[in-house]
């Protein structure tokens, strides 16, 4: 469903994504695990036509997002890491606009919007402007909106950051259902180990723009001789730092921060 070969993105001298290759099978739940600035979001942005890669090829359901961005956009839905709601619209209007833009038929759109707003406990506030919402409420609305339509592939970029445990559990439950019933392929990035551990059938660990290990949680533990994913993660990312000389690694990290700061605008 997702094929990525030698994908690279450079911002000036900084290698945000460095020669990354991976495949995600149809109906699979695939997780990108990595520290901040590892290149997870940049990879998702390239896959979702928001950024052009420096080199490498990608396929979403056999469509090249560079050559046919519009075709690629029809295959996926995405929940972004940072806010992407319209603060001047109400919760309901945000849902409705999203449903229209994503071709959800009228009857279904209204039904599902109501159902999802109930689910994230925002139905009472559906006619309030989003700018009156707290951070947590906005995040919940964002998740509800992301689940309004059934794309073939759902990208979730650190979806649970800033979510309360209740909503987090709701989200995972819902995602499991979608994955099972609709055979939806799910691509998520996270830095919560237990999330990747529970949800993903395969995990790619990313650091400094490179994928340093791929496999199921079990195989990653076996590979590193550890008994938890966290220990495996630390073993892998730790080893990676020792492989590079300290200077350039520190530099890359700083560049990563500069880039992230600039990106947030």
């Amino acid at each position, binding site marked *: 469903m997702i094929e990525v070969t030698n994908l690279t993105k450079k911002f000036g001298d900084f290698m945000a994504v460095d020669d990354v290759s991976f495949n995600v099978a149809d109906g699979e739940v695939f997780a990108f695990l990595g520290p901040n600035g590892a290149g997870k979001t940049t990879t998702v942005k390239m896959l979702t036509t928001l950024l*052009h890669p420096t080199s490498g090829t990608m396929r979403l359901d056999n469509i090249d997002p560079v050559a046919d961005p519009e075709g690629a*956009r029809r295959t996926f839905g*995405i929940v972004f890491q940072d806010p992407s709601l319209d603060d001047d619209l109400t919760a309901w209007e945000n849902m*409705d606009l999203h449903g*229209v*833009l*994503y071709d959800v038929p009228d009857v279904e759109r209204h039904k599902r919007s109501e159902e999802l707003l109930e689910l994230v406990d925002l139905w009472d506030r559906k006619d309030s*402007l989003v700018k009156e919402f707290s951070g947590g409420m906005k995040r919940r609305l964002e998740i509800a909106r992301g689940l309004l339509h059934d794309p073939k592939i759902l990208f979730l970029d650190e979806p649970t950051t800033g979510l309360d445990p209740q909503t987090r559990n709701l989200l995972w439950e819902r995602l499991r259902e979608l994955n099972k019933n609709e055979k939806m392929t799910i691509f998520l990035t996270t830095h919560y180990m237990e999330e990747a551990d529970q949800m993903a059938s395969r995990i790619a660990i990313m650091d400094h723009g490179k994928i340093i290990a791929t496999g199921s949680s079990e195989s990653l533990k076996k590979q590193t001789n550890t008994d938890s994913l966290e220990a495996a993660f630390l073993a892998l990312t730790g080893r990676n730092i020792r492989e590079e000389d300290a200077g350039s690694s520190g530099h890359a990290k700083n560049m990563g921060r500069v880039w992230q700061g600039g990106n947030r605008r």
Partner: protein
Amino acid sequence: MKKIYYLWLRQIKKYLRSTPRLAGLLAQPIIFLVMFGYGFGSSFGGGSNYLDYLAPGIVGMSIIFTAIFSGLEVIWDRQFGFLKETLVAPMPRTDVMIGRTAGTATAATIQGVVVLIISFLFGFRPVSWGAIVPAIFIMFLISLTFASLGTVIGSLLDDMQAFPIIINFLIQPMFFLSGALFTLQGLPDWLSFISRIDPLTYGVDALRVLLSDIGHTDLGLGIDTIVLVVTSLFFVFLGGYFFEKIQV
């Protein structure tokens, strides 16, 4: 079409809901009508005649300052994230751009009509009431031109700070050199050249022909309209082109 309509509607809602902005956008033409209409008019002698000359210019002014906001809205949406939501939607990005731009252009046209009504309160009367409808069409062409120009600028900039500079160095000169406030006779050649490539010149001229029949050039309504149609289409295409290229 439905998607374009929803994006259009979003712009209209945002325009109507932003009360401080609405107030500011209405205060500006009122201040100009008072300051120039009374102040300038009396120092030049024929007070009411100057209002007849001024009113279409002020309508044009309020339109461009509202329409150019489309650019700020692109930057704003980029900064606050909503732009991404539309950029990954399964639709051509040019449709996204058209919906947004048409929405802002419609808002700017409404603004123009409201300012025209305000100018009635100051004593302005159109030469014929039947000319109001074609005048609104001209207002929409001006709105579309500048809303698209705003989209071009907004697609190229990712920084709010740069936007006021654009307003100062592009929109202010375009406004002053359009003949909205004073006749353009006796300008140095280079300034008169700039005024001739300024689309607002043709917009204000057309509004004058239709509404006050005073102080217009001898270009004629036909030429004015053709120039406005061509430039608005040109900027819509240019806006679509640059909007397509946005990376977030």
